[in-house]
């Protein structure tokens, strides 16, 4: 690990590829993704772990990247919104969001889709209650959640997570 006062080298897996970045240990993973690694898909909505716009997967688990000091991501497997589509081929959740109106202004959408992908990896056939609970940490001000929940249910029906 590391000691001292300057930036350190952090090695992690990022969207399936080995990645190395120099950063201060207490830089937030959110800021390292956005500013050092140019992955601006993950957003800051509140900086207090309430809105979920900064959601990423860390070792397969949903976390709020605004609350992760980058040192703690050393050796981790991180997946962001940019890691979901396969080239031009959209992830089924992204496709479902497009068809069902799950994205309006779009700022909560990356975090919401990452959270939904985490939910479906835990529960391939979630009930509406499961979806509501699974997304309760991601705030959306535009949709009232209705079409987001429908998009996630649709993606589940199409076999995401199985």
């Amino acid at each position: 690990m590391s000691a001292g006062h300057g930036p350190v080298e952090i090695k992690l897996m990022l969207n399936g590829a080995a990645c190395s970045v120099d950063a201060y240990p207490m830089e937030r993973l959110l800021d390292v993704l956005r500013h050092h690694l140019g992955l601006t898909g993950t957003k800051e909505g509140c900086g207090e772990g309430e809105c979920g716009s900064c959601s990423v997967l860390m070792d397969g688990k949903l976390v709020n990247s605004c609350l992760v000091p980058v040192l703690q991501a050393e050796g981790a497997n991180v997946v962001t919104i940019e890691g979901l589509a396969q080239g031009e081929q959209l992830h089924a959740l992204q496709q479902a969001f497009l068809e069902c109106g799950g994205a309006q202004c779009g700022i909560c959408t990356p975090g919401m889709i990452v959270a939904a992908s985490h939910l479906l990896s835990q529960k391939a056939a979630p009930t509406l209650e499961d979806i509501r609970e699974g997304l309760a940490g991601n705030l959306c001000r535009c949709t009232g959640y209705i079409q987001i929940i429908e998009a996630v249910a649709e993606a589940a029906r199409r076999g995401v997570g199985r």
Partner: protein
Amino acid sequence: MKTERIVGTAVPRKEGRDKVTGQAQYVDDIALPGMLYGATVRSRIPRGKIRKITFGEGIAWDEFVVVTAEDIPGKNCVALIGEDQPCLADGVVNHPEEPILLLAHGDRHLLPKAVKAVEVEYDPLPAVFTIEESERKATVIWGEDNTFKKYLIEKGEVDGVWEKADYIVEGEYFTGAQEQLYIENNGMIAVYDPEHGVTVWGSLQCPYYVHKALRRLFGLGEDKVRVVQTETGGAFGGKEEYPSMIAGHAALLAKKAVRPVKIIYDRMEDMVATTKRHPSRTRHLTAVSREGKILGGEIDFVVDGGAYMTLSPVVLSRGTIHAGGPYCWPSVRVRGKAVATNAPPHGAFRGFGAPQSLFAMERHMDRIAQVVGVSPVEIRKRNFLKPGLTTATEQVVREEIDLSRLLDRGLELADYAAKKERFARENAAASGETRKRKGIGIAAFLHGAGFTGSGERYLSSVVGVEATADGRVRVLVSSTEFGQGTKTVLCQIAAEALGLPYGDVEIAQPDTEEVPNSGPTVASRTVMVVGKLVQSAARGVRQTLAAEGRVGESYSREEFREACRKYVGEKGEFVSWARFEAPSGIYWDDEKYRGEAYAAYAWAVYIAEVAVDLTTYGVTVEDFVALQEVGRVLHPVLARGQIAGGVAQGIGYTLYEKVVWQNGRMQNGQMTNYIMPTSADLPEIRVYFEELGNVHGAYGAKGIGELPMDGPAPAIANAIEDALGVPINAIPVLPEDIFAAMTAAGDVPVEGRGR
């Protein structure tokens, strides 16, 4: 007969792919070479003179760019309706968080400490924090009498109704402030150079509002200011006027620094320093006949505008005009007033005065029903507007709207009658063991779309539709996308009007250098008014080509492309313009506030079913029916999304979102303490549409963006009263308020009080 191929269908959202992949570029995703970051030093007191400013120890001040009011080249104001709001405080502050000076540095992490290190000493002045204090005028903080604006609407002979009345019903209703809480905070990037002037990119609704404000601030001509909208993560009115302030700040720093400057607020700064919905107080005094018909009445509607005028006159206007609801008032006097307090100025928020006055009206209707002894359904049916009758401003209802039938349909969708009866029975039979009470409540309302009265004529919006050499079409408007579907719907309209595939039409990024002023993206006017202009301009393209024999009445895509190629080759650019023309026969008197207030009204009935938990005093909305007549649904998925989202904000407004004030400053400026509903808090919101068409709107559409904000609060408050028998006349109503109301009513045993 509907023959459209694109309008009315669920085409893909134009910018949807970028949004779901995280590619969409919001202002904080953008960096310019050499860019500095900016921050704002703000007032810590509500009102006073600035005695001294000291730059404290421990900061390398020579590394910072510092801007004060003295650096303002033009007029130190944020130009809007008035020019009373300074861009930077100059010797005096009038609200907490008022901007005093600006700092910039290349390392954004150095700014918070530097902001804290600027010590401002004040000589405080007495301050005013409530509508009542402001009205008392013991301390005058604005103008001569703390009053930004007043309106008076008079119809019929109000003074004569009281002696004819069988009942006189009185009521007083309050609504609190509400934070727009777009998930993307305010942000701007600015550059300045002497040759080109000011350019800003940012999160905003109205590029030309910012353009006008920057021109005034810098004293620059219109070609020396350029405003570009970046992808905007929610707005709801919160980015109607405030962006002019932050753009001015970024631009002032950019000018002094001779470097690009980005200012991004964090959540707490955005919450405490920017605009919120105007708090309100409405008083009703109504003369009612034995049969429950409204004979006439007086309505006093007051909004708290905060420290500067900003948009208060217009919020007041809409609230005043909507104060009578969808009812026939043979006589009425509506007095509207916007007053000043020492809080950050309140501003636009979806609904814009109407949610406030309609809350009062719909609560008051239930009150009238109780006094007269009829049901909430019956009292409304006896008083609804009908075709041929006039509104409070004497606008004749010209469309075949049948509000009683709409109400009946809503009631059926909500299973109202059965539920009301069942809840009443169950509530009455409930013992102390049963910890739940259920209720169901109605709201009926209307929402005028477009600018009030002569507003649209004054805006004189212009739209362009461009056909390029390869037969693609570009819509040129300053109307902005911020989730509601502007890009998608305007492209649908153009594609439909031109007979082209939706995929062949795109919309230019709102950039004042590229697009004409189609007016602000507010007032539920974009689809209806701007869309109709897009329709006209698109037709203009067809007509031009047809008139010159370049295409026939109908044509294929290839024929169109070929015709455009030739046209552009011969004549250069091919843009068809359309300018708003006020429909003939529309009459509005700005002095008397009388006439056709809006070109079109959407009509709605909302029904809320609630459960009150007597253990926690918490209220949950368990079912919600939102039924509205909207002219024409141009995009079923987007339209439904708008209503659902607006209802969710309305539920927040009613049950969750409370701004805690102390001496004019919001104390709960964090998402952990300012509570908006999560997915676990909201029911399924059931949305239904009816379509009567609208001659003034594109393909018959009316504006719907703000409509859903008006209904939830009164429907829920009415439902809570149905459940508990306790009137709820102030929102937000939190469990603590339910507990207090039940205790006051003697419904709660006294023992549970604590020390």
